[in-house]
């Protein structure tokens, strides 16, 4: 079980995450929702320790994660795999190497440094890629792939980490509908087939409702909603998202949305 207790992050005067406490049982699929800037990313990054909390603690299976250092911290990061909105792959390296980076903490440091991956690691990476129909692209330079393909590579990288927890930070925010489904199905498969706990920041509410078995709503750094998706009523959702409600609830884009054609907006003569 992942236990978050009074977790707070301040950037100067601004409080990004404000005394968040959550208990997440193993095997859950939790969606963290809320408008941009609500502190969702910072919360996830603090769990993986890419960001240091100002106060509060995170513990996993009884171990205080916030106190880990050195090799123990790297071991924790390998257990808590991260998936990013911008994929955070190494564009100039091939797909295979990017997936193998998920094995860095499994290999000895020297072998990892020299790229001397074992045949077992290679086979594991290929089978993870194959789960997402990407094995044929293993030798391709990663930056030549589409966004959806890159996110699938990132999921394969997370999978070969053999994590106990997957933290996905807006994994579908820059993807088209088809890739959104492929990526979310991938996360679901990790959750169902391997029993990996998934915590996923999401902006689109319909996706969150379709995949998560629990929703955590954040506003201004605080948890303001924490229940099953069915309990999130339309008015609660509007309250949570404020001005971004239309976009998050999948309604017709408002005319001031950049790039979206204003289909029905009256044009002042």
């Amino acid at each position: 079980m992942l236990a978050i207790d009074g977790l707070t992050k301040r950037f100067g005067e601004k409080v990004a995450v404000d005394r968040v406490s959550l208990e997440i049982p193993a095997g859950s699929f939790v969606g963290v929702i809320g408008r941009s800037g609500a502190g969702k990313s910072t919360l996830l990054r603090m769990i993986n320790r890419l960001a240091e909390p100002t106060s509060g603690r995170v513990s996993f299976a009884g171990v205080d994660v916030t106190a880990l250092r050195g090799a123990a911290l790297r071991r924790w990061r390998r257990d808590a795999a991260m998936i990013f909105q911008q994929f955070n792959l190494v564009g100039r390296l091939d797909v295979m190497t990017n997936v193998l980076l998920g094995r860095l903490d499994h290999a000895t440091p020297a072998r990892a440094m020299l790229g001397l991956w074992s045949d077992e690691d290679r086979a594991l990476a290929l089978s993870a890629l194959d789960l997402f129909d990407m094995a044929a692209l293993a030798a391709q330079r990663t930056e030549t792939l589409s966004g959806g393909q890159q996110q699938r590579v990132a999921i394969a990288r997370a999978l070969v980490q053999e994590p106990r927890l997957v933290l996905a930070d807006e994994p579908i925010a820059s993807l088209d509908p088809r890739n959104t489904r492929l990526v979310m199905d991938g996360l679901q498969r990790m959750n169902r087939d391997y029993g990996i706990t998934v915590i996923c920041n999401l902006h689109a509410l319909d996706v969150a409702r379709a995949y998560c078995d629990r929703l955590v709503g954040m506003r201004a750094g605080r948890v303001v909603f924490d229940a099953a998706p069915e309990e999130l009523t339309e008015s609660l959702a509007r309250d949570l998202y404020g001005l971004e409600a239309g976009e998050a609830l999948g309604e017709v884009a408002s005319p001031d949305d950049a790039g979206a054609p204003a289909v029905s907006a009256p044009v002042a003569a």
Partner: protein
Amino acid sequence: MTNRSPHAGDLDPVTARTRFPRSFPSPLRSHGAAMAIFLSLSGVLAWGYSIVGVSPMRFMEGIGKLGSIALLMLPPDTGDWAKFLTYLYALAETVAIALLGTLAAAIVAFPVALLASRNVLANRVVHFASRRILDCVRGVDELIWALVWINVVGLGPFAGVLAIATANAGIFGKLFSEAIEASGRGPVEGVLSTGGNDGHAVRYGLLPQVVPVLLSQVLYYFESNTRSATIIGIVGAGGIGLHISEQIRMLEYQHVSAIILMILVAVALIDRLSSGLRLAIVGTRAAGRA
């Protein structure tokens, strides 16, 4: 006839000037300032000419000598094959000095550049110290480093290699750290998030992004250092430079012109080679995607 637009109010120039005098230039004052600047700059220029002894007369007298030297240089000739081979060997030594010096500079500069990059090392003191050290090393020219190293390791190409290496380490340190600071954070974060250590983050997250840029910079400086290496030979740090200064002193102008031609050919060849390599290294990133 007035130029006033009906849409922009009805302030006429005279009232405007009296109400908002600071929005109009005062003609006398601005002309006065321009004149003063022009006169003082001309004064500085004239003073500078007199200090370095610029004299059109001496130039006109000497220009004839330049012509006769040029005539003496023709045709370029090294006398015999033995001499030609001596020069060729010295030229190869010059290229070797440039190559080894540039490589040594790059090898020394890379770790220092990591220390001097804000996004690799957050420590302010190390950052500041390494930057200032690079500034100092870079502030001294190769020729001066050559004179210093000759006193340390004696005359010869080894001093030349050290001179090129020192001066360029300062330049590379700055260029490398700028390239490193311009690199993206995403890949580094991706490597760290999987449980990689800082070494892995540099090796897999940072290096693939910056190595093509660094290699292209190193190749460019190899070209430029081939030219510098001919100069440092003159003070005795090995290579072709020594032969040039010797032949000039012995008034063997045909030898001088032959050596200059050889240098030109060598530099042109290296130029072609290195720009081809640079294109091959950097050109492959054309498929860049955001």
